[in-house]
């Protein structure tokens, strides 16, 4: 497989160093300043090594897409640094960024919304060449058709419109467009979430094959844990703007330390009745708190069945728990021991939420 354990010696291809991103929220005061600030991403460190797939998981509003957009330099970060291939790219201008865009590409979630319905597929995929002033005329057409073939589309459909393609085929168009300039890094933002399972499998296979053939590096953002488990070498779990746990697929799925990771895993419906009947079900109470006014200390403490007094005082650092390998890090004051159950701490079903939901 890939460089999952290359670890500390290799240089990360893409790296976030204490990246924060804030958005103005609420109204603006007379001076035009925002009255409130939404902390979408809060001092996140993340490394993606060449050839590997890092899965970024978390629920709606946890900041995973914002982080990805910061890393692709689609957003400017509020604080921190973004490094690509050993170089600080945080403050490069648009023009300085342009050659780098060939190396970092993004595949978006919605195969319906991310393709212009009035343009032909050939010109959508060929855009990359036009923007970077490469390959003209017949050569461009030949390259585009080559790409269409690579992602499993019929090259003769060059002149068709997106509407003539099904959801899975449209996602292939998005993949072909991302691959046009032979990038080294692809950020996949929920690439299969809008697709049916059978079609989802086709697109996942395609992404895995392309990685093996072209030596691509992926940052794979999804809320679907079974998908992330399938494609990733390493996984980072986010909650309310922070990474709460990071490790290899086995670390996360078999030895989760953070109560949130554990709760997320237990909430994942398993297509196996025996497992569904016998495993522990942790139903988290309450809703995701607002990122405008996040809870103090550990952001997860108001919903955490293990929370104690110290949890709301200080933010726990992201570091290995005793006995864990250095690349399995957890941000929790009271991490779970191996095989420890979370249900024992939850009285009853835990349905009635004890605290105020999101306003």
């Amino acid at each position, binding site marked *: 497989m890939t460089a999952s354990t290359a670890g500390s010696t290799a240089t990360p291809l893409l790296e976030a160093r204490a990246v924060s991103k804030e958005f103005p929220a609420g109204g603006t005061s007379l001076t035009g300043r925002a009255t409130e600030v939404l902390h979408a991403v809060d001092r996140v460190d993340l490394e993606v090594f060449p050839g590997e797939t890092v899965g970024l998981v978390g629920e*709606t509003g946890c900041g995973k897409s914002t982080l990805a957009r910061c890393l692709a330099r689609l957003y400017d970060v509020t604080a921190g640094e973004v490094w690509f291939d050993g170089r600080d790219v945080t403050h490069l201008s648009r023009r300085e960024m342009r050659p780098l865009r060939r190396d970092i590409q993004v595949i978006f979630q919605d195969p319906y919304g991310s393709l212009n319905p009035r343009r032909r597929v050939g010109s959508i995929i060929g855009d990359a060449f036009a923007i970077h002033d490469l390959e003209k005329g017949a050569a461009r057409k030949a390259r585009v058709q080559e790409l269409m073939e690579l992602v499993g589309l019929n090259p003769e459909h060059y002149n068709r419109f997106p509407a003539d393609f*099904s959801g899975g085929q449209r996602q292939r168009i998005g993949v072909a467009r991302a691959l046009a300039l032979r990038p080294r890094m692809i950020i996949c933002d929920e690439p299969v979430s809008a697709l049916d399972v*059978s079609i989802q*499998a086709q697109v996942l296979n395609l992404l895995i094959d392309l990685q093996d053939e072209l030596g691509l590096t992926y940052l794979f953002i999804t809320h679907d844990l*079974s998908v992330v488990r399938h494609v990733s070498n390493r996984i980072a779990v986010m909650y309310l703007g922070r990474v709460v746990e990071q490790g290899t697929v086995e670390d996360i799925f078999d030895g989760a330390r953070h109560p949130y990771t554990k709760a997320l895993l*237990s*909430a994942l419906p*398993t297509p196996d009745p025996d497992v569904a009947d016998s495993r522990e*079900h942790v139903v988290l109470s309450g809703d995701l708190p607002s990122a405008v006014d996040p809870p103090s200390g550990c952001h997860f403490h108001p919903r955490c069945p293990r929370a104690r007094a110290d949890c709301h005082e200080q933010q726990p650092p992201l570091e290995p728990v005793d006995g864990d390998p250095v690349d399995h890090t957890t941000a929790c004051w009271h991490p779970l021991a191996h095989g420890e159950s979370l249900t024992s701490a939850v009285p009853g079903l835990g349905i009635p939420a*004890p605290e105020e939901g999101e306003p």
Partner: protein
Amino acid sequence: MRLLEVQDLRVSFSTDDGIVEAVRGVSFDLDRSHTLGIVGESGSGKSVCTQTIVGLTRGATVTGNAFFDGVDLLTAQPDELRGIRGKRIGMIFQDPLSSLHPLYRIGWQIREMIQAHDSSMTRQQARTRAAELLGLVGIPHPEERLDDYPHQFSGGMRQRVMIAMAMALNPDLLVADEPTTALDVTVQAQVLAVMTRLQREFGTAIVLITHDLGVVAEVADDVVVMHAGVVMEHAPRRETFYHHHNPYTEGLFDSLPAVGAGRRRLTPIAGTPPSVIDLPPGCSFAPRCPYAFDRCWVSEPPLARVFGDVHHWSACWLPADLVARTAIRDRLRAETAAAGETAEGAAS
């Protein structure tokens, strides 16, 4: 008597492109306190099927019967239907934001629904009942939240409000169309827990439409698998997951990223779901089916009992015998494995 008995339901729409045969002869039944899961890909007709039962497919040509507690919902008079829909049959839809009116307070919307079906209730009684319902589905401080607007609720809370409304009059049947699809897993777990708890308390029967086999494994008693408007397989939950007969069901399971299997290629179902306009003769799944043989292309298989089990039905021409069917599957798997490997691998 069964609570719900659907017999040979056919629904078609006439469009500019031709006649869309969305549902082509679907039958199933459901008892109190039971949950029926209906799964299938987009366009398989699973939503049209249940929407027709509750009378939401205007302009469609409908034949067949759908008996609810002895009343045929498809031929009943509007007056009779009014006493059943909303009152004895509750409905939950996929998108909780567009199912609530954005300009009315949550409390008003629940109250209006209660009073429409029970005119004896006073305004104050209905309000009390509304607060009680919000508490029941786990919304904190229900009394105060009654005066909030839908946008002040999160997605999961809105979906719980929808459940509260659907459960307001203790219906005998709850029709839930992808109730958790738009929600995150932890919120989905909360919503499913609320639904199953209410089922335990009130004996409600649930028809749950979903594309998520995981959700089906968690809550369904029986499973109907649909493809191109017909039932491909109908069996109890464990049979569906462990001893499925139909190649389409098999394909759905093979496309799932398996737990514990790690990073490997998946086996997707070939092709895409067929258009239900002008379907060719034969089995609708044949063009995508790895087992398809001569007979599959000429005549459509009926839903028949398989594996000697009275509760297990499958629409497929493959042998109905467990041993024979398993042997065929194993042979195909061996062949695909051999074809996938290089020269040495193919020797077997």
